[in-house]
Structure formats: structure tokens, C-alpha cells
């Protein structure tokens, strides 16, 4: 999509530059069509496609981990211990590796409600002009929905006796999945743990 968008932008810039250099181009029917293309249609299309492209990019692991404060969370994906939930999901490809954060945090910042979007802007402000909290914490408890949209209906989940006993509570979010699966990012305990990386794979 990016090459097409860049072509659209290039075309709009060329036509607009022509209008700047030769204002007489705006006269006549042909001139009006060129002006409409250069100053309305192409810029509006570029804005719409560009916003969509940026939104898609913001779902990527690279985007999330590009802030310094998130680096330890990226590091936790490589812990050589299959009890760590993010690590086991990332290393075994249970979630797309290029969208690993978004796979489990679907209602975060841009993708949540208006309040979540405002929070996302606040994150940026704090990242560049303030001091991020330490340790970082979610604003709301992690919702089981994030787990159940993949595990719900999966045989390994549905046939587990432990899950059967409390399935209703899990679905209603009364009992958190994280009460038992408690090793999450644990960024304060990563030092000294063995790490795995994709390059280690044969």
C-alpha cells in the first residue's frame, strides 16, 4: 500500500507545485479539474490512506517496542522459560510475531475507546517530556477476553478439568486467567534469566 500512497502524494505534490509556479493553470475547465485534483481529491485520499497505514503500523511489535520504556517488555518475550506467558506465545508462534503486543492488548491506546486514545497521547507526552512510572502498570485489570478470543473453544482449554470447574467465572471475568497463569512480563526479574532469540533457531 505504501508505494501506491507515495505515488498519490508525488502526483499531488507535482500538480500543486505546478499551480504555485503557474497560477494561470487554474483557469478554464481543465485548470479547475487539475486544481480540484491537486488541492482536494489527492490530498484527502493521501490523508485517509496515510492514516490507515499508520494505524496498521501502530499494531506492530516494532512500533510498540520503539519506545525505550517498553524495551524490557520486548526482552521478556525471549525468556528461556516456558512458564512465562508472553515468552511461550511469542517463541512458539502462538501469536503473530510481528504483532505480538497487539495480539493480547487489543483495547490499548488507539484501539480502545476515546479514553484509551487520550491515554495513548498521554503516554507519548510522558515518554518525551515526563518521567514514566516505574514499574509500568495497566490502567485496568487485564481482561480474560484477550485470552479467550483464542483459547475459548480450543480443545486444550475446553477439556481441561481445571478450566471446566470455573469456566463461567472465566467467561464473566469474575476470576482472572492471570490468577493461575501468573508469570507475565515480570520485567523486574529478567536480569540473570537465560534468553532465546529468533536467531538461535536452527
Amino acid at each position, binding site marked *: 500500500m*505504501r508505494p501506491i*500512497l*507515495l505515488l498519490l*502524494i*508525488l502526483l*499531488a*505534490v507535482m500538480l*500543486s*507545485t505546478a*499551480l*504555485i509556479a503557474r*497560477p494561470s493553470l*487554474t483557469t478554464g475547465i481543465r485548470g479547475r479539474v487539475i*486544481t480540484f485534483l*491537486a*488541492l*482536494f481529491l489527492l*490530498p*484527502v485520499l*493521501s*490523508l485517509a490512506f*496515510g*492514516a490507515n*497505514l*499508520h494505524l496498521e*503500523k*501502530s499494531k*506492530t511489535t*516494532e*512500533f510498540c517496542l*520503539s*519506545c525505550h520504556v517498553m524495551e524490557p517488555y520486548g526482552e521478556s518475550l525471549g525468556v528461556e522459560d516456558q512458564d512465562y506467558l508472553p515468552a511461550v506465545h511469542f517463541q512458539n508462534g502462538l501469536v503473530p510475531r510481528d504483532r505480538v503486543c497487539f495480539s493480547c492488548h487489543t483495547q490499548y491506546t488507539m484501539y480502545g475507546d476515546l479514553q484509551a486514545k487520550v491515554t495513548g497521547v498521554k*503516554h*507519548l507526552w510522558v*515518554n*518525551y517530556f515526563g518521567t514514566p512510572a516505574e514499574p509500568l502498570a495497566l490502567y485496568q485489570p487485564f481482561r480474560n477476553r484477550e485470552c479467550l478470543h483464542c483459547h475459548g473453544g480450543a480443545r486444550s482449554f475446553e477439556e481441561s478439568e481445571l478450566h471446566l470447574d470455573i469456566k463461567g467465572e472465566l467467561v464473566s471475568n469474575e476470576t482472572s486467567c492471570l490468577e493461575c497463569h501468573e508469570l507475565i512480563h515480570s520485567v523486574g526479574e529478567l536480569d540473570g534469566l537465560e534468553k532465546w532469540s529468533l536467531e538461535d533457531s536452527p
Partner: protein
Amino acid sequence: MNLPHPRKPLRAAAVCVVVGLVIEALTLFGTHPMAFISFLVFGGFLTGAGVLLYLTSLVSGWLGDAGGG
């Protein structure tokens, strides 16, 4: 250069659109929250301002034509 009335806002609109679109194009190469913010705040604002200037010049042109009979 002294431009007749309808061309001045069009030229300003074209300048805004060009600068805004160039900023937008540059942000497309970044995968970082700042790229996103630059796209929206700088690129989006300038491009939007250019489009609005163009639309305003259209409307004022029509109103002028109507007023002039």
C-alpha cells in the same frame, strides 16, 4: 508578484498542501509513535488547512459571482 484575488488563496492552499504532503510522505518511512504524531499534527494540519483554503476560495468565488450578478 501581484496575483488577482482568487489565485492568492489558491497559491497559499497549494503551498500548505505541498508542505503537508511532503511531511506525510516522510513519516511513512518511520515506525514510531513520533512518526504517527508528526503525520497527524503537522502533515494532517497543513494538508487539511490547504484543502480548507481551497474550499473556502471556491465558496467565496461562488458568493462573489452571485453577488456580482
